C-alpha cells in the first residue's frame, strides 16, 4: 500500500474515532424516551403528532414478545405496501420513462430485500424503477429497516443494562425517535453535500444528449417478437445500428443515496450503484459515503459502553471491530494492487493493479477500502464490481459477510450481531476456567447460549444450504435455446463464488453481489428473497428473546473470578471467537471458490 493509501486510511479511522463519542452520547438521548436533544424545539411537536396519529402511548414499555410482535407486524405491513407499489408502478404517477409494472417474483424479492435492510437488487434501477418506486416504495424501507435495526440493538443493550425488569422498550417509540432525531437530520445535511459534489436531485425526465461522435455497430436483427432473424444458412442476420444520442439518467437520487449509506442499506439508484458517476461523483463523495456507512455503527459501541456503565467494554468492542476491519483492508488492497498475472503476461502495466470493474477516480485503494467497509457493515453499496476482483481480493468481502457483518456492521445489526459473539466469547471463557459464565453481572445460562447459537447457525444453514442447492441445480434464466442455466456469468470456481456470494449477501442482509449472476429468474428471486427474510427475522426474534431473558436476571456481585469484558485480553478473545466460528463454518466453501481460483489463476488456467 502506498503513502497516499495510508494517509487516507488514517484520515478515515480518525474520523470514526472523533465522532464515536459525541454521536454515541447523542444516541443515548435519542434512545431514551425522556432524552432531551438540541433538536427538540423543531422535532418534539412532530414526534408528539406521530404518536397521536399512530395511536401510540410513548410511556408504555413492553416485554420482548410484544416488542417482537410490533416489529414483525410493521415489517409485514410495510413489505406489502412496497410490493403493491411495485406491482402498480405502471398506473401510478411520477413515471416519466413509462416503465412497466415490476413482475411478481421480482417484486417479492425486492420487497423482502428492502424490508430486511438487504437491498439485494435483481434489477437495474434506472431501467426498472419509476421515480415513485425509488422514492416511496424503496426509500421508506431505507429509513424504516435502519431504524428497526437500531431499535433492536437498543432493546438488547437495555436487556443487558437492566436487571429484574420485564420490559425492554417500546418498538414504536424507538422507530419514531431514531427516524426523526437521528436519521432524518443526518440525511438532510448529507444529501445536500452529495449534490454539491455532482449528484442529481430533480424530477425531470431523462435528458438526451447529442453524441459528438456517432457510434455505428453491427447488431443481430430482431423481428417483432424479439427473436433473432436468421438467414437461409441459419446464421443470424446483422444490421447496422446507429447510436447518436446518450440517455442521461435523472431523478431524485441524492435524497435516496444519503439514507442508503447512513442506514447501511446499499440499494443503488442505478444498476452500477456507487460506481455510477452521478451516484458517487468525486473521491470526496466516496470518502463521505464510506464514512456514512460506519458512522452510526461506530457510535453505537459508545452507546453500549455508556448504557452498561462500562465504557471500557464499549471501546473493547470498538477495537475488536477495528482489528478485523484493518485486516480486511490490508488483504483486499494488497491483492487488488498485485493485479492479475494473466493480464501482466499480455503486456498490461502491473503497476496499475486490477482495474477491471474499477473507476479511475477511485483507483485501487479506494475500491478495496469501499469493498471492505460495505461488507464489514451490512451496506452492500459498491463503488467497484466485486465480481471482477482478484480471487483473494474478492474473498475479503465474501468472508466479511459470512462472519455475520459484525465489523461495525449494519446500523444496529452490527452491534447486536457482535453482542451475540460476546455472549459466545464469555461462554467459552467460562468453560475454559470452569465457572458459570457471567456477562456484566448477569449469569449466562444454557437458554441464553442456545439463543446465541441459534443466531449463528441460521446464518450457516441459510448460506450453505441454499448455495449448495443452487450449485447443483439449473434454476437460472433460460438461455437462447430455452434450456435452464445456472445463471452464472463465469465458469469454473468463479461461477461457484458467484452463487455462494449471492446467498451470503442475501442471508447476511448485505445486498452487494458478484453481479454477473443473473438473479432475476423465478427460482433465484424466490430463494434469495427467502434467504433475506431468514437472515433478518430468524435472527432478530431470538435476539429479542435473549434481551428479554437478560433483562429479567438478577445482578450478581463481581468477584475475583469474574472475567473482565474490557482490555486487550477480552478484545483478543472476541476477535478469536469471530474468526474461529466464521472459519470453522465457511472455510470449506471458500476453499472451493476463491482459494482454488487463486491458485488456478497463478497457474494460468482460464475458464
Amino acid at each position, binding site marked *: 500500500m502506498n503513502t497516499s493509501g495510508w494517509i487516507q486510511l488514517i484520515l478515515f479511522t480518525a474520523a470514526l474515532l472523533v465522532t464515536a463519542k459525541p454521536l454515541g452520547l447523542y444516541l443515548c438521548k435519542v434512545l431514551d424516551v425522556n432524552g432531551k436533544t438540541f433538536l427538540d424545539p423543531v422535532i418534539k411537536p412532530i414526534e408528539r403528532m406521530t404518536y397521536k396519529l*399512530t*395511536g401510540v402511548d410513548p410511556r408504555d414499555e413492553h416485554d420482548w414478545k410484544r416488542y417482537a410482535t410490533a416489529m414483525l407486524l410493521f415489517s409485514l405491513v410495510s413489505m406489502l405496501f412496497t410490493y403493491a407499489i411495485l406491482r402498480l408502478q405502471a398506473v401510478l404517477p411520477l413515471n416519466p420513462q413509462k416503465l412497466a409494472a415490476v413482475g411478481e417474483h421480482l417484486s417479492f424479492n425486492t420487497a423482502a430485500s428492502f424490508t430486511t435492510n438487504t437491498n439485494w437488487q435483481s434489477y437495474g434501477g434506472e431501467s426498472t424503477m419509476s421515480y415513485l418506486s425509488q422514492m416511496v416504495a424503496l426509500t421508506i424501507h431505507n429509513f424504516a429497516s435502519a431504524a428497526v435495526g437500531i431499535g433492536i440493538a437498543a432493546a438488547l443493550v437495555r436487556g443487558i443494562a437492566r436487571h429484574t425488569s420485564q420490559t425492554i422498550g417500546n418498538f414504536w417509540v424507538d422507530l419514531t425517535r431514531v427516524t426523526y432525531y437521528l436519521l432524518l437530520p443526518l440525511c438532510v445535511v448529507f444529501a445536500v453535500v452529495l449534490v454539491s459534489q455532482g449528484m442529481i436531485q430533480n424530477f425531470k425526465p431523462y435528458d438526451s444528449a447529442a453524441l459528438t461522435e456517432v457510434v455505428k455497430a453491427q447488431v443481430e436483427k430482431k423481428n417483432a417478437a424479439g427473436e433473432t432473424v436468421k438467414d437461409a444458412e441459419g446464421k443470424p442476420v446483422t444490421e447496422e445500428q446507429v447510436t447518436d444520442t446518450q440517455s442521461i*439518467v435523472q431523478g431524485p437520487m441524492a435524497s435516496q443515496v444519503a439514507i442508503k449509506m447512513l442506514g447501511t442499506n446499499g440499494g443503488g439508484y442505478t444498476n452500477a450503484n456507487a460506481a455510477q458517476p452521478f451516484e458517487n461523483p468525486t*473521491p470526496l463523495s466516496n470518502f463521505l459515503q464510506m464514512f456514512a456507512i460506519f458512522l452510526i455503527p461506530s457510535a453505537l459501541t459508545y452507546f453500549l459502553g455508556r448504557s452498561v456503565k462500562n465504557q471500557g467494554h464499549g471501546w473493547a468492542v470498538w477495537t475488536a471491530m477495528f482489528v478485523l476491519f484493518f485486516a480486511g483492508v490490508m488483504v483486499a488492497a494488497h491483492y487488488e494492487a498485485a493485479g492479475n498475472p494473466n493480464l501482466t503476461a499480455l503486456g498490461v502495466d502491473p503497476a496499475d493493479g*486490477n482495474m477491471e470493474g474499477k473507476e479511475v*477516480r477511485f483507483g485501487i485503494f*479506494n475500491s478495496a477500502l469501499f469493498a471492505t467497509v460495505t461488507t464489514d457493515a451490512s451496506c452492500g453499496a459498491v463503488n467497484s464490481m466485486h465480481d471482477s476482483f482478484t480471487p483473494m481480493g474478492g474473498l475479503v468481502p465474501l468472508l466479511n459477510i459470512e462472519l455475520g457483518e459484525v465489523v461495525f456492521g449494519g446500523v444496529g445489526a452490527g452491534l447486536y450481531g457482535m453482542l451475540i459473539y460476546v455472549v459466545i466469547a464469555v461462554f467459552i471463557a467460562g468453560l475454559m476456567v470452569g465457572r458459570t459464565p457471567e456477562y456484566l453481572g448477569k449469569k449466562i445460562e444454557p437458554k441464553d447460549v442456545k439463543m446465541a447459537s441459534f443466531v449463528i447457525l441460521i446464518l450457516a444453514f441459510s448460506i450453505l444450504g441454499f448455495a449448495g442447492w443452487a450449485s447443483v441445480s439449473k434454476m437460472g434464466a433460460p438461455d437462447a435455446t430455452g434450456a435452464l442455466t445456472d445463471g452464472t456469468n463465469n465458469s469454473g470456481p468463479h461461477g461457484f463464488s458467484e452463487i455462494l456470494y449471492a446467498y451470503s449477501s442475501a442471508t447476511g442482509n448485505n445486498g452487494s453481489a458478484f453481479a454477473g449472476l443473473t438473479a432475476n429468474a423465478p427460482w433465484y428471486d424466490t430463494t434469495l428473497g427467502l434467504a433475506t427474510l431468514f437472515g433478518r427475522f430468524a435472527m432478530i426474534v431470538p435476539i429479542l428473546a435473549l434481551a428479554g431473558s437478560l433483562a429479567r436476571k438478577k445482578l450478581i456481585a463481581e468477584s475475583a473470578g469474574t472475567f473482565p469484558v474490557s482490555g486487550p485480553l477480552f478484545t483478543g478473545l472476541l476477535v478469536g471467537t469471530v474468526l474461529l466460528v466464521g472459519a470453522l463454518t465457511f472455510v470449506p466453501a471458500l476453499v472451493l471458490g476463491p482459494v482454488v481460483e487463486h491458485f488456478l489463476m497463478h497457474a494460468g488456467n482460464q475458464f
Partner: protein
Amino acid sequence: MNTIVKETTTAIRATLLFAFVLCGIYPVIIWGASQLLFPHQANGSLIEGSDRKIVGSEWLGQNFTGAKYFHPRPSAAGANGYDAANSSGSNLGPTSKKFIDSVKERVSDYRTENGLAADALVPGDAVTASGSGLDPHISPKNALLQIPRVARERGLGVDYVKSEIAKATDRPSLGILGEAGVNVLKLNLALDAVTPKK
C-alpha cells in the same frame, strides 16, 4: 388477539405516515435546497453545445473511436458501451477466458493505434472496463500515450495538447483523496473547439 389487532392498526398508520414524511416531504426538501444551492449539479452537470443543445454530462463518459479523439476506457454499459441508461461493469472474473481474450485484443489495438512498440506496457485502465461502464476519466498515463496520435491528426502541437489535458484533469479531492483522472469528454470537446470537426 387484541394486541395483534392494535399493533396491526398502528403498523398501517405508521407506514402511511412515514411514507408521507420520509418519501414525500423529505425528498422535496432536498430537491428545493439542491435546486436553490447547486442547480447545475442537481440537474446532471449538463454540457451544452454552441447551439444550446445538450451534448453530454460532465460525469458520464461517451464513446470515442476516431483517431483525432482521446479514447475512453472500454465499457460494458449496454450493447455498444457507454449507454447511460444501463450502467454496468463486465462482471467477468480474473480467470474468465472471455475477459482475458478481450484484454489481449485491446492491448494489441491500443499499441497499434498509438504507435507503441510490440512489448510496450499498456496502462491498466486503457484495456479494462470500468465498474459503471460510464467512467468519465482515463488515467494521466493513458492520456500521455495518446498525445502523439491526437496532435498529429489535428495538426496541433504536443505541448498545446498537454496543456489541454492539464485543464481537463480532475485532481484528487482535498489534494489527497482518490486518484487524478483526465475527463475524456471535456478534453475532446475542448480540442474540437479549436480544431473544428470537419
